């Protein structure tokens, strides 16, 4: 029990429970299966990218470019297919192409960070600007709505649905399951494979990891490779759910995703980020930002309220941290 209380994930879970409860008192609809479906659907994108971001953070770095990477991967792929009228391309090939592009872009980051030993924050700020600029300046700026058929089908694939008393249908989106699976796989990779443990090791202490015989460069290479792949997948998810390929759509909102990872206990000197924590962080932020209308918060007040809730969350977490001492 004592260990549980010390646990960051547990703290976040409690914050979520309390927030949910308070929201539920104001509007009972918020505590319903329908709303769960709806929040999970709203979290798909940030959850996917948060996974990539978390991986990099655990390895001791930071990535500010994941949205740019995802957008480039998705847009370039879709544009290529649409321009050549290859709309029947199977879904897995689309994912494969986006993943490859994502990997290449993240490996450029890796090169600067690992090979040139440059600070990750600056490198990825630069590469974010570069990727986004490249996409819009040289690839295209148009909105593509004639998406490949596979993506269109994926967009309306649901696993389960529920109809609320007022006749509104809520669907559990198939991608929620995919994302959940990704989280589970990542959890297994991080906790039960040598590679996963090596990531934690280099995140905690590079010199010690080197002495332990861990190949730092290769581990980082794989980290960025996986992060790139996830970002590529996230990009395709974004295009799919949007049913349109919009260049550089999400770029500029990285900090919200990073905030989710950090809220979930990632980052910091101890590099104790966990998959569960990240998931909870994402859910917490989605919970806040997707229920304000249900809470009947006037639209003019929403931004201020979001700010206040983030601050309160931080304060609760920090008092937790203080009481730990």
């Amino acid at each position, binding site marked *: 029990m004592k260990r549980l209380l010390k646990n960051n994930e547990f703290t976040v879970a409690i914050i979520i429970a309390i927030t949910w409860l308070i929201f539920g008192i104001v509007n009972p609809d918020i505590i319903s299966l329908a709303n769960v479906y709806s929040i999970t659907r709203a979290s798909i994108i940030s959850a996917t990218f948060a996974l990539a971001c978390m991986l990099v953070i655990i390895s001791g770095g930071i990535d500010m470019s994941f949205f740019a990477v995802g957008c480039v991967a998705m847009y370039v792929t879709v544009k290529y297919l649409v321009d050549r009228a290859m709309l029947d391309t199977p879904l897995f090939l689309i994912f494969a192409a986006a993943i490859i592009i994502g990997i290449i872009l993240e490996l450029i980051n890796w090169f*600067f960070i690992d090979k040139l030993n440059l600070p990750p924050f*600056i490198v990825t700020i*630069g590469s974010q600007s570069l990727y*986004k*600029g490249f996409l819009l*300046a040289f690839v295209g700026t148009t909105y593509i709505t004639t998406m490949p058929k596979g993506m269109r089908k994926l967009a309306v694939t649901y696993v389960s649905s529920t109809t609320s008393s007022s006749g509104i249908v809520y669907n559990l989106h198939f991608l929620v399951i995919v994302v959940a699976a990704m989280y589970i796989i990542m959890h297994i990779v991080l906790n039960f494979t040598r590679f996963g443990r090596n990531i934690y090791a280099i995140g905690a202490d590079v010199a010690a990891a080197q002495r332990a015989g861990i190949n730092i460069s290769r581990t980082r290479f794989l980290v960025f490779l996986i992060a790139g792949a996830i970002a590529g997948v996230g990009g395709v998810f974004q295009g799919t759910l949007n049913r349109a390929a919009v260049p550089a759509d999400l770029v500029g909102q990285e900090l919200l995703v990073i905030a989710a990872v950090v809220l979930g206990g990632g980052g910091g000197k101890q590099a104790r980020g966990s998959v569960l924590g990240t998931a909870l962080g994402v859910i917490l932020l989605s919970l806040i930002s997707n229920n304000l209308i249900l809470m009947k918060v006037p639209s003019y007040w929403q931004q201020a309220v979001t*700010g206040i809730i983030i601050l309160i969350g931080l304060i609760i*977490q920090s008092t937790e941290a203080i009481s730990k001492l």
Partner: protein
Amino acid sequence: MEKPSEPKKINFLSLLTKDQDFLRLMTITVAVFVAMSLMRPKLFLTVNNFTSMGYQIAELGFFSLAMMMVMITGGRDLSMVGISNLSGIIAALVLHNAYLKELSGINLWISIAAAFLIAIAVGIACGLFNGLIVSSLGVPPMLVTLGTLNLFTGIGIILTRGEAISKFPAEFLYFGNHTFLSVPIPLWLLIGALILTGVILNKTRYGFELKFIGSNYIASLFAGMRNKKVLMRTYIYSGILSAIIGMEVLSRTDSAKADFGTNYTFQAILCAVLGATNPNGGYAKVSCMALSLVTLQFLSSGFSMLRLGGYFKEFAWGVMLLLALTSNYLIEKRKLKKSLSIYSNKTQKKSLKA
């Protein structure tokens, strides 16, 4: 042995290496300047263009300075733009009133002065709020200021219902839209802010402590520095800079709105980092910042002249940042080799003696 002369020589050498940041940036700046001048000589090398750049540079300049100061502590201030807009809005309420009442003469000037004071007071209050949370809770400043950005912007939206407040007395507009001694007033403001920040950073106790706290928080505590106070002051200073530029924007655009300049946060980080500020804290240089600003402005206006969209600019900024970093890496590497070989000569002599 010629011992006395040796230290002097060494001092000079290490100074040179210290200032490599500056030289590198200078090279980039000159290169960009020459490139733009060659590509669009008739447009770029004109008085009009320089005046126009003079008007433009101040906003990013102020935000970058504010970001730089917070970065020295190892933090980031994402709420600057929010503070700037909020103080602009609150000052605008006062000024708009003055406009409606058609105040003139002394009454008008009193209300303009009041608007300035109120804006700065709002900046101080917001900065204080940030500083308090950051210094007392020990949570990552980036998250705190992300929260307060939402809060400050939100308050701005609540106050204005999202609409712009516009129409202010002409006397007030003068300050953002005219020149003094042929130099745009916003540029004077920026120069003032640069000098002031430079003085604060290099010539005051606060600046000294700021750099020390940024490079080692605990050791500063042990050296009797006033850590919390310094952190607090830094966020307040950032708030004041944001408030002043909020007033400048107010004057330049004759309006205040909750969502002006949202792009600046990111650009300011980029500019500060390009200007040799260490994002982990402890080191920054105002002269480098100034160069970085000028370079970005050259690029930005230059690209407009080349009729390339905003995205080319972003692309170029990214490329430039990475180039600067890489060159830094190469220089450091060479320096390391050199210093080691100097060292080797020395130890070999020593071992000969022994």
